């Protein structure tokens, strides 16, 4: 087993771990990030709703919560961060849809609560204005509470971009590296992983839904996480611009949000009913799917089941036993020094940039020396999106590199050039390629491109095609060669 020494070990390569890693790479600190999955952003990050908001679930604007501060402070940081990292970010705005006087009263309360904490961007729009802003909205809507600051981004792309930039600036990363045990040495931690021992002075625990389990390995926990999973449906791009803003309506029951919202890639998302669940349970249920669809139709009647191209479930939020539903954990362990626990829960994306800055301060308070890294480069260029280029741009790119003339994924117009680039940048699986390039994310869901992407992966990684996986581990796509099951070799 190998042995590795580092100054700061970040556990977890979701958006929080990644944003902390990138923030630390601005300093001359030896940082290692371990991720148990084969790629970054595949836990709660992957399953988040794309929305960058300023009030968590928008119902609460509470000064007393630390989480609120992190979300508000992040609002102004997110757009420049996405620009630096070449990650899509669109400030689409949110409309809280009002259908009756009771809802109007609740939205009024929400607005005044926001104003009490100096969030003054909300304004009411009347029925006609709403209709102009959202022509497909239900006739039952009598108006809306408009918040122009709400934005959408791509959380997995953001995480991958942060990791690429962090690595470029010196952060060491290890995937498929699960933390098994943590113990204290003289003035260091000894972290046992499935890939060997890591010695580190500081630990940042950003293990997402497993954050309390990791903390418990060394009794650094004073909180418990309760995972809640939500369901989000994805509609076909060919519906066009069905909604322009994040649409939000008052839920009918406590266990749901009621939203229809655009994504940066042109699909419309809807959801989100939620329920308590087990930590590894990413399964969707029929009941959730039906409820989500029914709610979505209630907001935008032209949505139909036949427009759904995919759906997913993910951990939306964590109930925190000690602190209450709405609070987050961004603080050093009260029992173990030099150990920082991070758990934002929903909305982790929205709070990420400010959280990273705070973690750096906390580490300094715990004794980490921070010297500026003079070589820090904040910029990262994304994978060229062929389908977004102009005709002239397409022409010159294909002339330069013919692999961009080979379209691999027809639904999303992803070329071999993009797939190869994604593999060069670290994709090792079908899902890794998918989250970086969108190959397989379209309406046929990889029916056409997965055999082709699988071939390219095998070729570029120099492995037999049988070893190509969907998402690492035992998720191989093709289990046997032809005739192998007949006991014969071809």
């Amino acid at each position, binding site marked *: 087993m190998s042995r590795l020494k580092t100054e700061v070990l970040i556990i977890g390569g979701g958006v929080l771990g990644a944003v902390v890693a990138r923030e630390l790479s601005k300093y001359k600190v030896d940082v290692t990030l371990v991720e148990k999955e084969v790629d970054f952003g595949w836990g709660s990050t992957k399953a988040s709703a794309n929305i960058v908001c300023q009030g968590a679930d928008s119902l609460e604007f509470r000064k007393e919560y630390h989480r609120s501060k992190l979300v508000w402070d992040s609002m102004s940081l997110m757009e420049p961060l996405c620009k630096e990292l070449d990650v899509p970010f669109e400030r689409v705005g949110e409309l809280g849809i009002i259908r009756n006087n009771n809802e109007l009263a609740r939205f009024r309360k929400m607005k005044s609560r926001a104003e009490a904490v100096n969030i003054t961007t909300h304004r009411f729009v009347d029925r006609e204005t709403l209709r102009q802003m959202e022509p497909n909205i239900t006739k039952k809507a009598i108006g809306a509470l408009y918040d122009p600051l709400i934005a959408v981004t791509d959380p997995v792309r953001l995480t991958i971009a942060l990791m690429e930039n962090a690595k470029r600036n010196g952060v060491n990363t290890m995937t498929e590296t699960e933390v098994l045990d943590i113990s204290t040495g003289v003035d260091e931690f000894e972290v046992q992983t499935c890939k060997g021992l890591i010695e580190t002075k500081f630990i940042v625990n950003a293990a997402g839904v497993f954050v309390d389990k990791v903390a418990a390995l060394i009794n650094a926990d004073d909180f418990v996480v309760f995972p809640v999973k939500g369901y989000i*449906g*994805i509609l076909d791009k*060919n519906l066009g611009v069905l909604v322009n803003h994040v649409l939000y309506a008052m839920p009918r029951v406590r266990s749901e949000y009621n939203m229809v919202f655009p994504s940066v890639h042109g699909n419309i998302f809807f959801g989100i009913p939620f329920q308590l669940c087990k930590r*590894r349970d*990413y*399964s*969707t*249920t*029929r009941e*959730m*799917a039906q409820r989500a669809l029914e709610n979505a139709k209630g907001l935008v009647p032209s949505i139909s089941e*036949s427009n*759904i*191209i*995919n759906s*997913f479930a993910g951990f939306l939020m964590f109930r925190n036993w000690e602190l209450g539903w709405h609070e987050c954990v961004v603080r050093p362990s009260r029992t173990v020094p030099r150990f920082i626990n991070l758990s934002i829960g929903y909305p982790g994306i929205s709070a990420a940039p400010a959280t990273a800055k705070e973690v750096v301060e906390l580490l300094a308070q715990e004794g980490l020396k921070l010297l500026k890294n003079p070589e820090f480069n904040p910029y990262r260029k994304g994978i060229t999106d062929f*389908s977004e280029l102009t*005709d002239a741009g*397409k*022409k010159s790119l*294909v*002339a330069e590199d*013919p692999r*961009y*003339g*080979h*379209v691999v994924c*027809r*639904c999303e*117009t992803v*070329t*071999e050039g993009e797939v190869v680039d994604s593999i060069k940048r670290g994709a090792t699986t079908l899902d890794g390629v998918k989250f970086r390039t969108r190959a397989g994310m379209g*309406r*046929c*869901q*990889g*029916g*056409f491109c*997965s*055999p082709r992407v699988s071939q390219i992966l095998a070729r570029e990684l120099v492995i037999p*095609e*049988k070893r190509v996986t*969907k*998402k*690492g*581990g*035992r*998720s*191989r*796509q*093709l*289990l*046997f*060669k*032809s*005739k*192998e*099951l*007949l006991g014969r070799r*071809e």
Partner: protein
Amino acid sequence: MNLNAQKVGVAVIGAGPAGMAAAIKAKEAGAKDVVIIERSEELGGLLHQCIHNGFGLLYFNEDLTGPEYAVRFIERVKELKIRTQLETMVIKISQDRDIMAVSSKQGYITFKPKAIVLTMGCRERSRGAINIPGTRPAGIFTAGTAQRFVNVEGFVPGKKIVILGSGDIGMIMARRLTLEGAEVKAVVEILPYVGGLIRNEVQCIHDFDIPLLLESTVTHIHGEQRVEAVTVARVDRDRNPIAGSERKIECDTLLLSVGLIPENELSLMAGVELDPVTGGPVVDENMQTNVHGIFAGGNVVHVNDLVDNVTWESDLAGASAARFALEVKPVGRGKIALKPGRGIRYIVPQLISGLRDVTLYMRVREPEQNVRINVGDIMSRSLRVVKPSVMIKLTLSAEQLKKLEKGTREIMVECEKRKGKK
């Protein structure tokens, strides 16, 4: 607009059976500069992965495999020296019929054709499209993707297989995987009857003793990394799972054969109007769409069960496109709409002129015995058995069409139960 655009007579998009037939007929009808644009490296499309037989029984009066059927057309394309533009993906058709395409060899190409034939075929409905709850492991394939892996790439996806849906490709893959040594644990169909052809039900399912679970569906997928099992439940009349009827079937692979969707993203860009029932363009008896000069044939128009019909339809589309390109005789649009009435799901073409013989392709809504198909009051045909999976083909003669009253705008087509028969 685009100075570098290549001027061509007829551009055919897609080189499957439909595209090859259309190009051949266009060329034979005298069209100049016919070009087939195909995204893969060879002509033939999906026929190459359909190594089973049953192709050409009607068109050639012979029982051919998919590749054999393809070769007949590939050779004819060569004989006629039709230009083929392989490994070229069309990414856009503009409203004024310009075609934008990319190829690794030639880069970004623009074509300016006089006429276009759309022959892009169809794609398979995916898991997302039918919204099956559960986890997202590896091991879930559409039947056609699995067919490509097995027959073209040389892999067997798994050894314990459940197939959801009894479409033709699903049933054919049930047999194929059994022959490859895998165990097909069940073919699960939500309807009370099989979705594909009767011959496939007999030859692929019954002959191999594969369990066929009708009025059942997969209600949950299990397994974190690779499929480990599926839950199958019986469904009630409204196709909702019956509580208590669930059982878990262990498997490592789930194939989906739950329907095909005509591939019309390019058609929509070009402003082509689609029929919401077929998912394909609304066409007239010349296979012309609502956009003048754009024709369509085969599975892009409506999903066929036999390749022979795909070929016939596309023959017509190709010949019509040639006429349009040569401007010999303007190809007018049909003015009389054929409307699906009671018992009928759809009819292709949707519009006819009423002046010439025309072949109608139609599907019924439900399986039925001893019925009569009535085309307005100008034609009636008795049929002993009808099934949604089996296309009905009728020819209306010009003679019969003469019976139409002047100014008729609409003809209702119905499927009615014959009186006195049980």
